């Protein structure tokens, strides 16, 4: 038997993973959720047909969405995570002993439940007692917050479907309001490579630039995502991702990582020319 999972990356390009077996398939109020097992990528989570994370390369994504901001902010105590029902962001965050409080907001309880059952590699993040789970629309949760968080991490799915609201100007503006005066917002920033993804990248950047005084983009290589070239946003009220970065302080924490390191921290903000141009095109555009 040959069973292949495929994901359409563009109307003319597809990505395949050979599947051993299906572990779970179900439907929530918001979306269809599948967990598959494969030889090459281990277990992987699929939502509405789109690959969300694989056990093999999730470390890259989760380390990169958490550590750069944690290494820049001198004193992050309260962190808000939006999306991230797989728990991977939480796992990385809970490695910092000085973090006191983590709120995680996900609209879909079933995603969390399924991940806890089938994807313990990431879902272990939910077990920490500093983690508070809120099952709610992220838009709604953040609207009621003001001056509360040091760091907000937006681990959104895609700019369509239930996560759509997390890509809007009103959402980023509400994040600004929810952050303390030296807060940092990190977000999943889509990919610059394929045309449709690049449009999303530009839209996100345009809206964040309008809301935050400092807005930089950094990259990582995530093999299972479309084109493998992925971006993150670093938006901040006060701290610059490189000028305010203290590599010694981060190294002294003794956190072991497989992808992130302090050299890479500086390097990942250096973007290819075509990506810089893509972003510059929407900066300062009304």
């Amino acid at each position: 038997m040959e069973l292949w999972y495929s994901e359409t990356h563009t109307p003319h390009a597809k990505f395949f993973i050979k599947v051993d077996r299906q572990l779970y398939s179900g439907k929530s109020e918001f979306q269809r959720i599948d967990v598959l097992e494969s030889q090459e990528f281990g277990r992987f989570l699929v939502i509405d047909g789109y690959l969300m994370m694989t056990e093999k390369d999730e470390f890259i994504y989760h380390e990169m969405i958490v550590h750069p901001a944690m290494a820049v902010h001198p004193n992050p105590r309260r962190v808000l995570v939006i999306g991230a029902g797989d728990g991977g962001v939480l796992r990385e965050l809970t490695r910092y002993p000085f973090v006191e409080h983590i709120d995680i907001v996900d609209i879909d309880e079933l995603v969390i439940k399924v991940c806890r059952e089938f994807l313990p590699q990431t879902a272990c993040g939910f077990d920490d007692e500093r983690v508070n789970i809120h099952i709610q629309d992220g838009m709604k949760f953040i609207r009621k917050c003001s001056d509360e968080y040091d760091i907000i991490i937006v681990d959104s799915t895609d700019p369509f479907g239930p996560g759509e609201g997390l890509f809007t100007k009103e959402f980023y503006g509400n994040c600004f309001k929810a952050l303390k005066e030296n807060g940092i917002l990190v977000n999943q920033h889509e990919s610059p490579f394929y045309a449709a993804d690049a449009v999303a990248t530009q839209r996100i950047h345009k809206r964040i630039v309008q809301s935050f005084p400092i807005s930089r983009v950094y990259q990582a290589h995530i093999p299972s995502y479309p084109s493998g070239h992925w971006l993150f946003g670093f938006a901040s009220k006060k701290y610059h991702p490189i000028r305010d970065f203290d590599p010694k302080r981060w190294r002294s924490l003794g956190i072991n990582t497989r992808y992130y390191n302090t050299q890479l921290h500086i390097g990942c903000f250096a973007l290819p020319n075509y990506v810089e141009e893509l972003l510059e095109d929407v900066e300062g555009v009304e």
Partner: protein
Amino acid sequence: MEVLSQNRAPIAEALENLRNIRVVPFDVPGHKRGRGNRELTEFLGERCMSVDVNSMKPLDNLSHPSSVIREAEELAAQAFGAGYAFLMVGGTTSCVQAMILSVCKHGDKIILPRNVHRSAINALILCGAVPVYVNPALDYKLGISLGMSIEDYKKAIDENPDAKAVFVNNPTYYGICSNIKEITRLAHERGMKVLVDEAHGTHFYFGKDMPVSGMAAGADMASVSMHKSGGSLTQSSFLLVGSGINKDAVRSIINLTQTTSASYLLLSSLDLSRKRLATEGETIFEKVKEMAQYARDEINNLGGYYAYSREIINGDTIFDFDISKLSVYTLDLGLAGIEVYDILRDEYDIQIEFGDLSNILAYISVGDSYKDIERLVGALSEIARIYKRDKTGMIKHEYINPRVVIPPKTAFYSEKESLPISRSGGRISGEFVMSYPPGIPILAPGEEITGEIIDYIEYSKEKGCFLTGTEDLEVETIKVVRL
């Protein structure tokens, strides 16, 4: 004729049949089911083009219905609790005009609120009826026109016992209802017909615990914008008549101005939407009400905004309130409604129904989701945070009592001259000036142009209202009656 079930949609079914038997078209329209216009077919879709056909025997004829259109009209009449229902393809404008033309002739008086839609005054120009205006009450805090007080209607009826008809908005754009039952009783006592503009009230006929509908209140005719809350295609409406009205006479009035090539896209959309409301309307509007209430509560929690509801009911000029409407007062933030409307669209990609000088109206329907409502609320929260300012100097009232000097038709057809609006004070207007939406005239033909009106027009322009009505598309000059 047999009684059909509300699960049927005779026009849609006939179109489906026609498609299945694959008739060879040697008739109009010339695009021949789309094959003759590839680009348009790709744009609109093949199914859509394949039902854009002309009236023919199996499809009946709107101007003289005897089979499927007749059945669709009878089904609609049953669904709305009317004596008869006409399928209308010229929008609710055509319904309002047919109502007025059906009951008024040249020189006849008609009692109507001045905050009617321009289509009502247009009908007066067409038939030469003379308006007796009842001024709507004003809410000075919200800056909106309310319903009519019973006292004012009674006074108008007593002073004009020769009037032929009374016209009522049920509800207004903002969701405000007058005491239509009592108005109907008063009018009928004097033998006057009651005409109801229900452009914003389709759901009154199907939802639970809604304000009373025109037909239920015993009105003689009602114009219903099925395409607003009813879900049909833009430009399709129902004209409902009570059992005391001669429907054949109304049909001949409709046929005076109605197209003889009525679109089957519009007709089938009316047919299928009526079926949907008759069978699922109650559930649909429960959901709409829930969403509107949720949005209202959330918006009121933001601070600075006031999303009003039934608490404003006062037993007379706000006899009832349509809670499916999401009207929000914005002036306490120092922002005109029209400014919030523009910011929502330009900065947040959110298009709402309209903004006036002190309110916005977001139209909630079954097509909405909580996800989208979160966006609206989130954006309003941001607008309050970023744009809030001092509110001194903001104008709010949106209604100025007009002085009607000559009937609209006389003014419209008189010799006119063009003047800059700023220098037109004291003259009689020969045309309309209005903000669109809502399309309620600030000035109508035959009314005196006062300094107050000129200031109001200038202020509306400055705030970015979309003004229309004058021949001059820039609305810099106005045609006035030559002295």
